[in-house]
């Protein structure tokens, strides 16, 4: 359980990290909090030649508010969101999701951007950001660019980030005070990765009605027939779960139940 040898550099800003990652020609790896990459290095599932440390880039730890959105820097930790130390564009929903990620010792170091870049389908943020339709800000060799929520995660552990790209953070649209959210995940034990995730966001003032199926074999899937799913139509829920690729009988039941429970949270009172 010891990592294979790698060299190490600490980047001072995103440009430097990007240049070093480019020089690594695909063998260098950026690290933020290291709560996903650390285990993968110890298990030797990842064996980069070089680790480019982003943790010291203070600008990536910032969060800022504008009238219609909140920007959360990539290095904002799960614990900072849990504790309400950064603004929550969704009336406490992000806080609630963050509080159930892994364990406090992990949340103190694990970051929003690291989790998104890692893109484990069973993690919370990839599905949350899809549900909230966040925009991803990326610093790459050709400068800055933005990626829409539906374009970011492409498959399990696969994103729109290139080898030399650095995720700067996400811009999350602000929801109204009347918005309601449902979030349900099945975990074997508190803090484990989810086996199924169901999420719902309803904001009448903004005309938003969305539902997401997460912890699938790939990227989270937005529900197509939202009206039927929000009405609790069992056939519609089952069809959406099958469309998300969850056709194994056990997986199917878990995902259908997670989505039903998330819908129920929004419907109840």
């Amino acid at each position, binding site marked *: *359980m*010891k*990592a*294979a*040898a*790698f*060299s*190490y550099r*600490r980047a001072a800003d995103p440009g430097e990290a990007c240049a070093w990652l480019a020089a690594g020609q695909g063998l260098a790896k950026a*690290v933020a909090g*290291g*709560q996903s990459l*650390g*285990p993968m*290095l*110890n*298990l030797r599932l990842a064996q980069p030649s070089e*680790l480019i*440390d982003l*943790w010291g880039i203070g600008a990536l730890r910032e969060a800022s508010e504008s009238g219609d959105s909140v920007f959360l820097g990539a290095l904002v930790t799960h*614990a900072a969101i849990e504790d309400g130390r950064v603004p929550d564009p969704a009336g406490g929903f992000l806080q609630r999701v963050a509080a159930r990620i*892994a*364990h*406090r*010792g*992990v949340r*103190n*170091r694990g970051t929003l951007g690291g989790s998104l870049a890692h893109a484990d389908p069973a993690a919370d943020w990839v599905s949350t950001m899809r549900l909230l339709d966040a925009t991803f800000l990326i610093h790459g060799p050709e400068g800055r660019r933005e990626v829409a929520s539906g374009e970011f995660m492409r498959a399990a552990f696969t994103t729109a980030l290139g080898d030399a790209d650095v995720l700067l953070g996400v811009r999350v649209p602000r929801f109204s005070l009347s918005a309601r959210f449902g979030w349900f995940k099945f975990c074997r*034990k*508190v*803090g484990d990765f989810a086996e199924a995730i169901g999420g719902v966001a309803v904001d009448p003032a903004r005309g938003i009605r969305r539902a997401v199926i997460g912890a699938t074999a790939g990227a989270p899937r937005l529900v197509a027939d939202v009206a039927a799913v929000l009405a609790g139509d069992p056939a519609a829920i089952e069809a959406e779960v099958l469309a998300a690729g969850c056709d194994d009988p056990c997986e199917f039941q878990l995902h259908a139940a997670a989505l039903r429970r998330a819908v129920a949270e929004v419907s109840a009172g």
Partner: protein
Amino acid sequence: MMPVRIQVNGATVDAEVEPRTHLADFLREQAGLTGTHLGCEHGVCGACTVELDGAPARSCIQFAVRCDGGAIRTIEGFEDDPLMRRLRAAFSAEHALQCGYCTPGMLITARDIVTRLPHLGGAEGEARIRSELAGNLCRCTGYQGIVRAIQRVLRQSPGGGDAA
């Protein structure tokens, strides 16, 4: 090898480390502090929990080179901490350990629970304490004693006496 300067329990430690040396190995083998225990070495069991820059973190999935310039507090660094003294007494009184392997990590997590969530002393606080403890595995106690020990401390007055 890379040079690092890390504050460990208030003292400055200068050392040369391989980038792949994780913080727990650094603490045990280079700083000579064997109170930090290694269980799973991939961030699941919580035995290696230390305070890193003031907050609990798993030292097995953090690399020592990344902690250059940072501050670590291991279980040894809590020797004279008043709250930890009360927790140690409560762990003893409530039989919150048997083999003791998970105990350093348990105590650091327990101290974080008591300071961050001081309202969990009542019967209704038990479920939340169990949830907060889920990242620290104990194979001996069944957690009963650990939960009782944390609640015993939460019910005490800050001075250490049992509240009426």
